[in-house]
């Protein structure tokens, strides 16, 4: 088994042969080909079959050498969700075609899952994919698609058989975002900007080679994607007072004029809650590293959504008159969420999305209740009936 020393050694040998100040793309492609991209992936696909926990050893060694990175924040969907799905469910040809430019950032990915009529109940989706010779013809509407306006590819789930129960009639595709009939429009959100898009698909022709997994098996493939989404959202090591609590703690220390007894109590409660969430996330990372998987990722996302909302709401009231102001309502297209440098009003509004995006807090509570605690499922009328007979 590959260990940390062996990996460090490989990075150093790679750095001896490749100039970190040279061509960025050539460097990243070579790093992929050397198996030093995502070390847990198989050899030949950017990895070495090493334990996943050793990824940070490699990343740290490259960072220490000031090597160019693949701008992970810009290609988070591809790295976090698409790649694990393609590795697990794709054909060898698909892996070889897509993974390298995904990792280097040459090809940006987006996720075409949610629809106006299918949010929490994602499996009820109505976008239709009909077989036509060697192609599929796709028609429908997707929503909340970040990076769609920059993406080369999208992961798409569509209904291929309306006559069977909803989870069984779905197929998973790679959507060519440059194909005719793909129309991407910005979706302006409550903060004034547009991180996300609506994507209208009208008779989009996708060759069958772009199908991932079997026809009708798309829900199972999508679960791989969604599981990795929650891991991505809940992760990240953090020192004390990182995140929003650090911002309000700094304000509290700098502005004695704002302090009231009630807000002092509220601040201390939030500080304790933030510390508890931080330590729980730290323990979760230790569990994952020790190979003790679980649904705790759902718990971390659940906890942070509430915490961010409570802290940002507190911050506005603490600031009193200044809390009435907002920095900028201009319509922009940000690629990352810059909550630290924006105004408190932005933080308050953006945090409202935290309990909706990537699974609402209510759905996460269901997941915890059923999969962790083993409580019985809700009584449901929609599981056995054909999709086309469900009320919409």
């Amino acid at each position, binding site marked *: 088994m590959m260990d940390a020393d062996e990996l460090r050694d490989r990075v150093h040998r790679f750095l001896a042969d490749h100039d970190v100040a040279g061509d960025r793309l050539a460097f990243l492609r070579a790093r992929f080909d050397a198996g030093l991209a995502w070390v847990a992936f198989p050899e030949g696909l950017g990895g070495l079959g090493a334990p996943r926990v050793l990824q940070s050893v490699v990343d740290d060694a490259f960072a220490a050498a000031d090597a160019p990175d693949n701008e992970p924040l810009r290609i988070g969907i591809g790295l976090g969700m698409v790649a694990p799905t393609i590795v697990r469910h794709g054909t060898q040809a698909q892996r070889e075609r897509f993974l390298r430019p995904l990792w280097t950032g040459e090809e940006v990915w987006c996720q075409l899952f949610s629809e106006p009529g299918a949010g929490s109940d994602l499996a009820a989706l109505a976008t239709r994919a009909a077989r036509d010779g060697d192609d599929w013809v796709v028609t429908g509407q997707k929503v909340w698609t970040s990076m769609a306006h920059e993406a080369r590819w999208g992961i798409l789930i569509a209904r291929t058989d309306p006559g069977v129960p909803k989870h069984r009639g779905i197929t998973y595709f790679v959507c060519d975002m440059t194909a005719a009939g793909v129309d991407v429009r910005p979706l302006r959100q409550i903060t004034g900007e547009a991180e996300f898009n609506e994507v209208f698909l009208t008779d989009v022709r996708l060759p069958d080679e772009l199908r991932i997994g079997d026809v009708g098996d798309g829900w199972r493939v999508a679960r791989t994607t969604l599981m990795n989404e929650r891991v991505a959202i809940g992760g990240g090591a953090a020192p004390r007072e990182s995140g929003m609590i650090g911002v309000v*703690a700094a304000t*509290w*220390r700098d502005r004695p004029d704002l*302090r009231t*007894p009630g807000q*002092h*109590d509220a*601040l*201390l*409660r939030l*500080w*304790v*809650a933030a*510390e*508890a*969430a931080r*330590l*729980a996330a*730290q*323990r979760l990372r*230790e*569990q994952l590293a*020790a190979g*003790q998987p679980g649904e*705790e990722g759902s*718990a971390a996302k*659940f*906890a942070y959504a509430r915490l961010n909302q409570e802290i940002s709401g507190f911050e506005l009231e603490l600031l009193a008159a200044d809390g009435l102001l907002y920095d900028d309502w201009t319509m922009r297209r940000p690629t990352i969420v810059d909550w630290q440098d924006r105004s408190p009003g932005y933080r308050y509004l953006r945090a409202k999305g935290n309990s909706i995006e990537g699974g609402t807090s*209510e759905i*996460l*509570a*269901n997941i*915890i*209740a*059923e999969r*962790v*605690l*083993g*409580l*019985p*499922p*809700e*009584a449901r009328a929609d599981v056995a009936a054909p999709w086309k007979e469900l009320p919409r």
Partner: protein
Amino acid sequence: MTLLYSDVEEDLRSAVRQVLVERSPWTAVLARAGGDEPYDRALWQALAADVGCAGLAVPEKLGGAGASWREAAVVAEEVGRAAAPVPHLGAAMATAALLATVDDGWADDDLLAAVAAGETTAVLVLGLATPPSVAVPTSVRAANGALTGVVTGVADALAADVLAVPTNDGLWAVDAGDARLTPLTTLDLTRRLCDVAFEGAPARPLAGPAAAAHAWRAALRVGAALLAAEQLGIASWCLDATVTHLNTRHQFGRPVGSFQALKHRLAELWVAIAQARAVARYAAGCVADEDPDTAIAVAVAQAHCSPVAVRAAEECVQMHGGIGFTWEHPAHLYLKRAKSAAIALGTADQHRAALATLVDLPG
């Protein structure tokens, strides 16, 4: 510092749980609750001496097991899970005080060795509601090797052989038989309080004034960390019992646990308990390592775990419905222990007030 449990800790947990399940089922705890013998001395003997829980944090050269407060915290979790009527908290705080005297060049090696072996139960004499970061109380005075004064609301002293008494003048050992213990009728039926009166009780010095003040602070920190672990155990039992009940109880033709109104409350409780486990582990790790962050860690642990244990016990009563309100169901034992534990060694509010100073968030 890891926040996970080691294999050794899991083995210890199994051993402790086995003793508690066999010798102290809730029916036995309930039967004892109304009686004149509030503490189960045989059970404590089995845990302290036979399993070796009393000496976990004591170094081997002083007669202990050479483990740490981290392992002792695992025992506290199980004691909380069983709502066991044993003086684990009071004994651990006395042990912490004795260990601190060693650091300061004082030590009653014989007493410490006997305590570590589980042969003698020493309990620290302090009011259970003592808030964090207070100085040694002045209600007991030493003169000519004898103590005079009263400490009210002391936990676990009814199960003690020796009382470790902190005063302004030092830390003293008094044989329990030389003090007058007046049992109190308490909210918590499983950790009983008494007033401890000294009327010229003969006392052996364990430490001078400075070392006693140091021992007092060490005992409060260890006590807060272990109490947080105990609260975690209480909360875990309450959640497990409630989930079991909701899976079996049927109303309206379906298991009560399939109703989202209840599932979501239990999911939130589980998240809070997962956080409680992390903060309690961190606090135990800090006291074990004498980490500079200990004061903050134990204040966070108490501020978080106190309300979580209470909420878990309150949800347990509510979600059991009528049966949860009866004497014949164990839920009330946990509710009473949880609510009392939330006041013990400082309320959550008092620990938040301590944090305001510790982390520079002044009012």
